[in-house]
Each structure stands twice: as C-alpha cells, then as structure tokens.
C-alpha cells in the first residue's frame, strides 16, 4: 500500500512539474510574440493613447498622494533617527536616495499593479469569457497585437514617468517634514541632497521602473487572455494576476538591485 501511495505521489509530482514547465515555456513564447509584434508590426496610435490616458492620467492622483505621504513619513522616520546623531541635515539626502533607488520604483510598481494591472486583467478576462476575444480571432485579428501590444507600449512609456512624479513629490513631502518639523536649514537640505543623490541613482531607479512596467503589462494581459469560467474565472484571474505581478516585482527588484550594486 505505501508503495502504491508513493507511486501516486511521484506521478502527481511529475504531472504537476510538467504542467508548470509547459506554462512557463508558453509564457516565454507569449513574451517573444509581444516583443516581436511591438518592434516589427505597425503600431496602433489611437489604442496606445487610450492606454496612456488610462495608465498615466488616471493614476496620477494616487501616485502623487502616495508619493507625498511616503516621502513625508520616510522623512519623519529617518529624521528621528538622524536627530540622535545630530545629522538631521542629511535626512533630505537619505530620503531622496531611498526614493530614487528603491521606494519610487517599487511603490509605483505596486500601485500600478493594483490599480492598472488588475483592471487590464479584469477587462481582458471579461472579454475572454464573453467570447469577445474569440470573435476577434474569428475576424482574423490577433488579440495579442490588438489588446496586449498597446498596453505594453503604453505601460513602458508612462510608468517610469509616473515613478519620476512619485520621487519628485516624495522629496517635497520629505522637505516639508525636514524643514517644518526638524527645522533643517533649507540650503543644507538641498545641498546635501544634490551632493549625495546623483543622476545615476535616478537612472538606476528608472531602469527598475521600466522592468516593473514590462512585468505588470505582460503578466496582467497574460492572465486576462487565459481566463475561463465566467464571473468566478474573472475574479480568480484578477487576483492571481495582481499576486503574481507583486511577487515578480519583488523578485526582480532583488535581482536588479544586486546587479546595480555589484556592477
């Protein structure tokens, strides 16, 4: 009997592993398809602008609010610690460094994943379960070209820009707490920030943001295209898409940070 159970377990493990590997392989084929269509086929400007408006314009409010409060809170926390060492003057620099290199891209990625990625998956999965994507295929139109590529291009163009807004407004938040609460001299705040936070920090942050944009667009659209099973399927696809995007962002963040620190 135990031999039989072990056999079933090994069988199950084999099938599961194969299924996962096949899914990963298919994901990479899909990524190749999206990339080749992005660079080789004619763009759809109207659809790209529609997505730019949705991802960029409609997310700006939440990005600015979150950026401001993140900068302010980070300033408060770091300012409290720096005060112990009589180094409050460095709080602006520390906050700006953290915002440009890490908090800006990461928080923007999280926010966009929750607000935009979930909407992309929900929209595409609803289209899938309502046969709208089947109709598109039946009309000889490639859903990847029509639905995914414009979202991919728009995400890649606008999410790093949102990240810059996040960093900028975050620094303003930190400035208000530094100058207003910790009585840091305005000149010192700005001078130290300019001294310690270099353009390469901004460049590194933008690289991360661009990678996160790619992940959000690809993962969200993929889950949407593969959805099945009515309203419940839409819910499952949306949840899985957001969770996967967040995990992918965190994993890639570690990897990119390591590469940036090491090389």
């Amino acid at each position, binding site marked *: 009997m135990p031999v039989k159970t072990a056999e079933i377990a090994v069988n199950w493990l084999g099938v599961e592993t194969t299924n996962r590997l096949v899914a990963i392989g298919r994901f990479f084929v899909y990524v190749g398809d999206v990339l080749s269509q992005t660079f080789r086929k004619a763009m759809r400007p109207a659809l790209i602008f529609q997505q730019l408006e949705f991802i960029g314009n409609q997310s700006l409010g939440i990005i600015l609010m979150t950026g401001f409060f993140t900068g302010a809170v980070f300033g408060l926390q770091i300012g409290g610690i720096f005060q112990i060492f009589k180094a409050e003057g460095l709080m602006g620099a520390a906050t700006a460094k953290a915002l440009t290199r890490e908090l800006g891209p990461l928080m923007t990625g999280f926010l966009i994943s929750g607000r935009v990625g979930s909407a992309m998956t929900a929209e595409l999965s609803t289209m899938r379960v*309502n*046969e*709208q994507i*089947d*109709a598109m295929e*039946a*009309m*000889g*139109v*490639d859903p990847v070209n029509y639905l995914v590529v414009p979202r991919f291009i728009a995400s890649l163009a606008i999410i790093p820009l949102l990240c810059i807004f996040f960093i900028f407004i975050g620094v303003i938040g930190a400035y208000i707490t530094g100058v207003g609460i910790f009585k840091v001299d305005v000149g010192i705040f700005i001078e130290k920030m300019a001294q310690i936070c270099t353009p390469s920090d901004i460049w590194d942050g933008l690289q991360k943001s661009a990678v996160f944009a790619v992940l959000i667009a690809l993962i969200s659209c993929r889950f949407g295209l593969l959805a099945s099973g009515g309203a419940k399927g839409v819910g499952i696809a949306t949840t899985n898409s957001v969770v996967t995007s967040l995990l992918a962002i965190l994993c890639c963040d570690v990897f990119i940070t390591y590469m940036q620190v090491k090389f």
Partner: protein
Amino acid sequence: MIEFKDVRKAFGKRVVLDDLDLVIPPGKITFIIGKSGEGKSVTIKHLMGLMHPDRGQIIVDGENITGFDEEKLRIYRRKFGMLFQNAALFDSLTVGENVIFPLREHTRMPLPAMLERVEEVLSMVGLPGIQHKYPTELSTGEKKRVGLARALVAKPKFVLYDEPTTGMDPLVSEMIDELIVQINRDVPGVSSIVISHDLKAALATAENIIMLYQGKVALAGTPDDFRHTSDPVVRQFFSGRVEGPMEFL
C-alpha cells in the same frame, strides 16, 4: 465548397470527431445539428482554424487548411463572418465601431465608404441609425442583429451562425431565421452554416442538414430526407424522446 476528410479530434480520451467526413455545398443554407456535446462547435472551430485536428484534412475552396500557419490562418479567416451565440460585441465600442471593426482591420477603404457600408448592413438587419448606441443599450435580439451586421460587413464568403436562436423568444427566433434566409438570398455567393438545436428552424430554413452523432455524420441531406428517414437515431432526435438508441453522456 467545404470538405472534412477523416477528421479526428480527441480531448484526452474523449473522441469528439471520429474520422468525420462531411461536405458543405456552396451557396446554400446548411444546418449542422446534433445534441449537446456531439462536436458541432468543435467542427466550426476546426473550420475557422481556431482548433487543429489530430489527423485528417479540411479542404476549403480546394485548399487544405490544416497545414496553414497562424499568419495564413488569419488571412484565411477573412473569408468568414461569424455570429456568436451571445453576439460577442465589444462592449467598450459603440455599435458603429463594432460593425466597422473588420473593415478597419482588413481593408483600406476610405472612411466615408466604410460608414456607408456600416449603414447598409445595419439597414439589412433592420437596425438603421443606431451606430452611436453601446451594446449595453440594446436588447438581446438587437445585439444578435448587430452581431450579424458585423459578420456581414466585410462581405464574407461564408457566414457562420453559432446557435443563433438559443435563448430567444419565438418572435425573435423567427426574425433571425428570416434574416438568415434573406441574407442567403440577397447576398450573392454567400454560404450560410448554422449550428443549431432548433429542429423546427432547421426543417423550415435549411437547404441542407447535417446531423452529427458520436463524432460522425448520422445523416446528411435535405429537410425532406430528414422528414422521411427511418434512421432510429435521427427519428429519436427529431421526436425528442429520451427512450431510444441514442446514447446520452
């Protein structure tokens, strides 16, 4: 002409199309009937190149489409217009944008000509002047008719209807059936292929009926052939009796 030769399709151990041979003549209204799960939709998906057979050939206008790659299939699919069971209109687009969609994607027609064609097909299905409305503002019957207008707008050679009257009230069903006849009569060279459970409509509307049973053709012929057949499976299906030789899954 459409021809299926020894087409086999299995999902796991379940064989849905079992060396299926069928012929759909050009220019006629052909109904593909059969009980649920007999492979009607799978047959249509194979015809559209949305599914690939495990073996066999699908020959459309003399070309075997089973060897086509995805790019070639996309071009091939332009021969077809399809009315989906739930119309499958893009709900983020207006009626006008839905109907113009195939023209925008596949033709280089000037915009005024496209708009004129949209108005023409909407009039053909009895819904002129509703281009500005969204699908959510339409009744189920109107959605079907807009779906039909979209299927017809690019002047396809084959129009496929997937359960066009399922879930419709008798009046709307009658109207859709009349539209199928009208389109087949008025649009030159078009062939209509209808998947349906609706036997009354099949007998009244079809010029050719194909009944699928256990992955094969149980009977193919004119409505009169079906009325006078002695095949027990066909007779049971037409009488709607549970008792008989027909196996239920």
